[in-house]
């Protein structure tokens, strides 16, 4: 009896060993996609004064100037579906901002004047799908509440690149990686603001922002 049990145990161990060898002979099951879905959040200062954004969860602080590309932060990856809370600090006043992103959503939190030195926030959301390493992605963000339809024109023939961009919304398209000078205007209004993007790089993503401060229309751009 004891011998039988010994044989059985020996057989089981041999079988387990064989199974283990088989398991290593081919790859085990693994994920073929992301382990979690992300969203991306950035802050843009569309006011006349410097601003600080302080993360509520930690001590992270982002400082945004009121000059050109210093107005925009980079995109910060966050777990989609979870709430990102931050405090906007401007002129010794603080306002809270909360945002929850959908999977793969890019959210631009714009800080705009709301009168008497106060500020408020507006959100511009997009879920891009135009990723391309051979062309450049160019977006126009209309941050001017008074401009009902922003239009960007440029290139040698001054063609329309993007148009009908409503306030606090974005439009984006792929363009060839060329040297590009453009102008942004509001349909129905005179005048335009120039923006020189220089040599666009293939695979890079660009955001052009239109805003009006002190009745002056202005633009700036950043690489996303």
């Amino acid at each position: 009896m004891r011998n039988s049990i010994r044989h059985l145990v020996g057989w089981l161990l041999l079988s387990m060993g064989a199974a283990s060898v088989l398991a290593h002979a081919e790859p085990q099951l693994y994920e073929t996609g992301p382990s979690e879905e992300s969203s991306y959040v950035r802050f843009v200062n569309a006011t006349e004064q410097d601003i600080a954004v302080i993360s509520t969860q930690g001590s992270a602080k982002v400082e945004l100037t009121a000059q050109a590309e210093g107005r925009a932060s980079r995109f910060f990856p966050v777990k989609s579906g979870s709430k990102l809370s931050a405090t906007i600090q401007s002129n010794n006043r603080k306002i809270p901002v909360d945002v929850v992103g959908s999977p793969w959503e890019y959210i631009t939190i714009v800080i705009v004047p709301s009168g008497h030195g106060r500020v408020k926030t507006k959100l511009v959301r997009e879920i891009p799908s135009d990723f391309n390493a051979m062309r450049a992605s160019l977006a126009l963000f209309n941050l001017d509440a008074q401009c009902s339809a922003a239009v960007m024109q440029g290139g040698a023939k001054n063609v329309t690149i993007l148009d009908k961009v409503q306030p606090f919304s974005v439009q984006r398209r792929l363009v060839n990686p060329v040297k590009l000078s453009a102008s942004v205007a509001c349909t129905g209004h005179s005048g335009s603001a120039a923006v020189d993007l220089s040599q666009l790089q293939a695979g890079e993503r660009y955001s052009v922002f239109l805003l009006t401060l002190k009745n002056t229309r202005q633009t700036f751009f950043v690489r996303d």
Partner: protein
Amino acid sequence: MSLLLAGLTVLVIGDSHLATKDYLITTLHDELMRNGAKVYSYGACGTPSGAWMKTMQPPCGSAFRLDDGPLRIRAGAAGSTKPLPELVNLHHPDLIVVVNGDTMAGYKNASLPKTWIWHEVSALTKGIKASGASCVWVGPAWGNEGGKNGKNFARVEAMSEYLSDIVSPCIYINSLAMSKPGEWGTLADDGQHFTKAGYQAWGSAISRVIVSSDILQKIKR
């Protein structure tokens, strides 16, 4: 022997297709050597492209093969990989061959996770660009539908098309053009990993495309 490939140093990196004996780490590696190249192959099972820019422990092991040396397979912490810049410093490749697609296609996800794939692929292509080496990127092959990995023809086609848009400056090698859907046999209840004959066919086909690609003309000049 290929006059264009002879004398060149080729670094091959990829996923599970390069992490087991008789897979591409055997067949593609052999074919490239037969064509006169000095070949260094590294496979990291279950990893997306961006993982090659850091040291990481693959979820299901790794393997490497240094030119005419033996295949080495590693599991657990011992399977931790070397990041691309380190591999480039070690081997000084003229050509980098990336074999990666299946691990990012999200076969069980409702849609192709384009943004995530973009970030993963861009991380690696930026590293390759910085290395100064030329590059080809081998996309996923058809395999078979079903199996534990959830592989399906519609998604692998979408993944291949998407990769062709986003892997520049690497030249994209479309594995789907090398066979008909389901033509190459896969392991039982798998759909994604091929039989020995399948890997032989895939490795030979990739090698033929590399030898015929205009990228080699550019390197030789």
